[in-house]
């Protein structure tokens, strides 16, 4: 539905409105932004000459009905505990190793089965649609979870720019390959660059967002700056970081972890407490930040987003299509 609608409207008409809105927001929020930058610099001691540096406050963020009401995980835990194998296989290390990662200049190429292949600059992407706060549950395949206040907008806003063709059935994503900046890309820990994929309807789903910020700030490098996905009903590794390429394809694209171990990581990788991972039970999850003696939470089907997404998979055997 979303796709059809977008195809009816020429892209020339879509673009100006959010850009216009954003401009107004920018003017009204300018003072606040300036103060926030100053405060950010003071607090973090960053050399942020560039306004887009991590830590910069983002202005005019709208609330979203898709946000959950659970207590968000602390900024410290979100930015100090995550898997970012390009930097390290240790979850505590990416924060330091990604500190000087360059997020400018940055362009994203949208190609494949589209009417208008595009190379879009990150600063254009930042203004493509109104920013929303989406407080999402984030469930790692390893059995831990967080509640993360992402900032971004539906991925469909970006995808529509290229006007995908009717026979495009899947969307393939690719992370930047920059071994000079990402130390683990010099070794074959995984097959680089990291690639992920979504079915067209998953990619266009309103819950699937392009993430540009966290806790009202520009996305920290450690969490996939300058842009990443958040697909909250799937295990975390589906939400690819530091994206440089988006390609529309007809057949199911290969994905990094599936190449690594096909029996452990399926293409869909929807959060599913009834389908165990060979290494971990997926029935429960440890909520980060709750302390040593806190009991685990029961994992919810589709990470609790079943009402919105279960219909995408009706009639499919989710044991087979794990």
């Amino acid at each position, binding site marked *: 539905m979303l796709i059809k609608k977008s195809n009816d409207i020429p892209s020339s008409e879509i673009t100006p409105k959010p850009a216009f809105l954003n401009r107004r927001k920018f003017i009204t929020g300018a003072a606040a932004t300036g103060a926030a930058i100053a405060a950010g610099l003071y607090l973090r001691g960053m050399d942020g000459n560039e306004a887009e540096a991590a830590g910069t406050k983002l202005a005019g963020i709208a609330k979203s009905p898709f946000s959950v009401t659970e207590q968000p995980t602390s900024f410290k835990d979100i930015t100090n505990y995550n898997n970012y194998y390009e930097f390290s296989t240790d*979850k505590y290390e990416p924060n330091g190793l990604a500190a000087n990662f360059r997020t400018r200049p940055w362009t994203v190429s949208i190609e494949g089965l589209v009417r208008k292949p595009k190379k879009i600059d990150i600063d254009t992407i930042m203004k493509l649609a109104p920013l929303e706060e989406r407080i999402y549950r984030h469930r790692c395949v390893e059995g831990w979870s967080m509640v993360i206040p992402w900032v971004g907008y539906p991925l469909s806003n970006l995808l529509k720019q290229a006007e995908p063709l009717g026979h495009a059935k899947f969307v393939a994503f690719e992370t930047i390959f920059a071994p000079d900046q990402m130390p683990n890309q010099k070794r074959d820990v995984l097959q680089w660059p990291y690639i992920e994929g979504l079915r067209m309807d998953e990619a266009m789903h309103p819950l699937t967002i392009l993430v540009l910020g966290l806790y009202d700030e520009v996305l920290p490098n450690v969490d996939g700056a300058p842009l990443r996905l958040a697909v909250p009903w799937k295990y975390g590794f589906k939400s690819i970081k530091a994206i440089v390429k988006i390609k529309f394809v007809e057949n199911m694209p290969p994905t990094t972890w599936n190449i690594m171990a096909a029996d452990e990581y399926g293409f869909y990788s929807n959060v599913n407490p009834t389908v165990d991972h060979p290494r971990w039970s997926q029935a429960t999850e440890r909520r980060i930040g709750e302390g040593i003696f806190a009991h685990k939470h029961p994992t919810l089907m589709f990470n609790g987003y079943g009402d919105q997404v279960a219909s995408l998979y009706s009639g499919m055997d989710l044991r087979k299509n794990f």
Partner: protein
Amino acid sequence: MLPLREKLVRVLKLLGFLLCLGPLTLLVWKGFHDRLGANPVDVITRTTGRWTLIFLLLTLGITPLRKLSQLPWLIRFRRMLGLFAFFYGSLHLMTYVWLDKFFDFPTMLHDIAKRRFITAGLTAWALMLPLALTSTSGWIRRLGGKRWQKLHRLIYFSAAAAVIHFIWLVKADLRQPLTYGAILGILLAYRVIAWAVAKLRSKTSVAVARAGPAISE
């Protein structure tokens, strides 16, 4: 009066004992000072697991080291190191049973049966258990040196199971577990070579009396 060397060994053993408690002390200190990171249970699990493996390798390192360095008193540290391997291994197991599974035994049984890295880990611990229980001088006497020694060769299998446990739990990047594996390989290879040399010497029956004691272990 104890001879000076005996005194020195005792002092060294006490220092060694305190040093072996270092990883646990640090862990507890971090725990009380909110320094265990975002996922404390994960840190506790990994720290106790890593030190179990390190102590297993240290224990296995004593025999080659004392032979090569010709410092026979090093043997006095072997039991302590072995018991510390068991101690950290038990903490590791307790972390799983208590902090990870909260004594949910059906789930644990399912885990043991289904997840091979859990199976390997539990095997490594279970193989240490009889060694810890029979580590006293009384048990050495009761079993007799030969039988006791035979039983205690289970440590080879325990260490191997521990390395396999580590290899199987890693998702990608096997450098760490393979490093431990390589060290274990060297320590076991030493024994195979020592055994082969002993065999060869006894066959050629040259100076059995001289070669015997040096390679009997």
